[in-house]
């Protein structure tokens, strides 16, 4: 009987009578199933490795330092169509903007849902609303964002066309909608972290006469910092990888075109490009059709994703604290899908 499971790590194969159960004694159907499991597992490994290696080989082959410092130009000849400086800047702007909006909002919602949740019907409704946001296709979010940001009173966030209609496409608009995309992830991982905190932490704070608000600000939030960071990084990964919102809300320009003369504000109000739209536009499906540029940009994008991935691994290794059980990565994958207990 497998009572002596290792304290850390996976359950592993059950030890029956002190030795590993041999599959050779199984009926054929069971053995087929066993081998199918192995085949799928290894298959997934190979597919992922294939994708990564393919992107690395292609990316390194076409990547040149000059691509990072040149702005894209509309030119049929690939050697003169510039690099992807603007798209990289665009990606950074959109993700910073999106996270700057999503992080405070997401943490606030998560704290309210976990610590207050009064009245409870409202809390349940908010929970399912977040569930719905997490499931909404990003194209639909983008369509909705376009409607909102084309409203007259939000004209200061984009630009007015000559006929007086509001353009509705700008870094502000894209960042705003991206925030909606990231909120479920941040809410999920913040709540996860809050639920992992030992109750005695709260009790100790209350016993010292602290109010709930003070406890949250001084005790709980500092304790779940890695959890919040994890959500933020996950949200960032989501933002960096999204193409549909950018195409609809930032336009398909190659370079970042400002509006007006105030330095930073003009860029934010203007249209532009990010790495994802750059890859898309330079793929055979887009207008540029410069596969080499697309591969190079996709490689940069891939590197960003890898870095963010590594960050999440590092952060989840840090979070959890003394008492929690060893965390598995899939605890993260389910974050946005979680419902309250």
């Amino acid at each position, binding site marked *: 009987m497998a009572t002596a499971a290792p304290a850390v790590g996976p359950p592993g194969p059950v030890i029956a009578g002190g030795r590993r159960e041999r599959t050779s004694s199984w009926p054929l159907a069971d053995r087929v199933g066993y081998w199918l499991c192995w085949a799928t597992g290894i298959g997934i490994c190979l597919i992922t490795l294939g994708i990564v290696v393919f992107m690395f080989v292609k990316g390194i082959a076409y990547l040149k330092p000059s691509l990072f410092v040149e702005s894209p130009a509309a030119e049929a000849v690939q050697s003169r169509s510039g690099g992807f400086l603007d798209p990289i800047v665009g990606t950074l702007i959109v993700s910073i903007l999106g996270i700057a909006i999503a992080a405070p909002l997401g943490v606030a919602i998560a704290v309210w849902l976990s610590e207050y949740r009064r009245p409870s019907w409202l809390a349940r409704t908010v929970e399912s609303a977040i569930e719905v946001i997490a499931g909404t296709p990003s194209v639909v979010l983008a369509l909705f964002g376009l*409607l909102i940001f084309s409203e007259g009173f939000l004209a200061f966030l984009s630009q007015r066309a000559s006929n007086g209609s509001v353009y509705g496409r700008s870094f502000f608009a894209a960042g705003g909608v991206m925030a909606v995309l990231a909120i479920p992830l941040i809410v999920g991982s913040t709540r996860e972290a809050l639920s992992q905190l030992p109750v005695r932490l709260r009790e100790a704070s209350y016993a010292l006469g602290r109010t709930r608000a003070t406890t949250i600000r001084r005790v709980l939030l500092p304790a779940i910092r890695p959890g919040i960071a994890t959500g933020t990084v996950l949200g960032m990964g989501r933002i960096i990888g999204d193409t549909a919102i950018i195409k609809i809300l930032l336009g398909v320009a190659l370079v970042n075109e400002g509006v007006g003369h105030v330095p930073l504000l003009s860029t934010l109000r203007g249209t532009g490009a990010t790495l994802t739209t750059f890859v898309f536009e330079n793929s055979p499906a887009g207008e540029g059709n410069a596969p080499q540029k697309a591969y190079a940009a996709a490689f940069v*994008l891939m590197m960003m*994703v890898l870095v963010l991935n590594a960050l999440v691994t590092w952060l989840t290794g840090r979070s959890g604290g003394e008492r929690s059980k060893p965390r598995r990565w899939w605890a993260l994958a389910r974050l946005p899908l979680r419902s309250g207990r």
Partner: protein
Amino acid sequence: MDLNPLRAAPGEAQRRGRRWATARLDRRAEQTLGALAVVVLILIAAMVATVFIKAWPSFSHNGLSWFGSGGDVDEQLRAMQRATPLPGHSIYYFRAWPLIWGTLLTTGAAVVIALVSSTLAAIFLTEFAPLVVRRVLDPLIRLLAGIPSVIYGLIGILALAPWINEHLISRSRKESVAYVVQLNGANLTTATLILTVMILPIMVAISANALEAVPRSWQEGSIALGVNRWRTIWRVSLRTARPAIIAAAVLATARALGEAVMLFMVAGSRGFAANPLDGLTFLLEPVRPLAATIFEESDGLTNPAISHTIYAIGAVLLVSAAMLSLAGWASKQQLKRFGIGI
């Protein structure tokens, strides 16, 4: 209550005043946070309302036949772009069936394939994989989940599609359907394969999570009765985790439904209702799902007819995705019966 002994004990009145003040502060914090949460609710309500209002002209002109078939959907969209209605029809004339059919095919096929393989992979990951393999597989699957869809699209259109075009589509096959549709590497099969890889990680994640949460004693009970490992997994673990696996499938469906960029790039981008009667050629026919159509036509949003139609498609997607998310949420609630919360 300030019980801190280091602080000079204030007078009773003062103390009560402070207690009152902190309580008010606490209440205000609660209200502020609650208000922010309500913002999300308002956002959702506004989204549903505005998208439907904007979509209404398209639905009202076409009625329920909006969902039906009739004519070439690409031609209908072109007519809207030119602002010249098709003869005998209004400018809003739109029959979305080819797009809906394309969505059903790609999503359905991908989810079915992914359901089987993700369950097997989850069993592998939680039960059979040696620690070394698992240490490799864990981050790899997570990486797979993080790859942006445009990269999947790029690989599809630059690597997989040309290969399929060269090796799987013979000239005679192309000629056999040349009078209705042109075959090339970007087709239903390519799209389904890549979509499967895209939704696989999230499904493996949820399923593995649930399998891991199955109480060990239940498995041990089964093993103690002399049932072998595989049967135990099949009969005990999988059955317990079934709601989670269903939830995974439902949520993956929602994701596949909303995938736009990748499907636009590799599904052939042709509003064509692939015909199962064409035999094997069916698998190689181009399609264009709903989300990809929004993505493609988004340049024409200034055109009123196009924009109402696009928002109508968006409304259909919104409703389906919302229903799927709630269904996934509901099916996860069943797990709580077993005391397994995921």
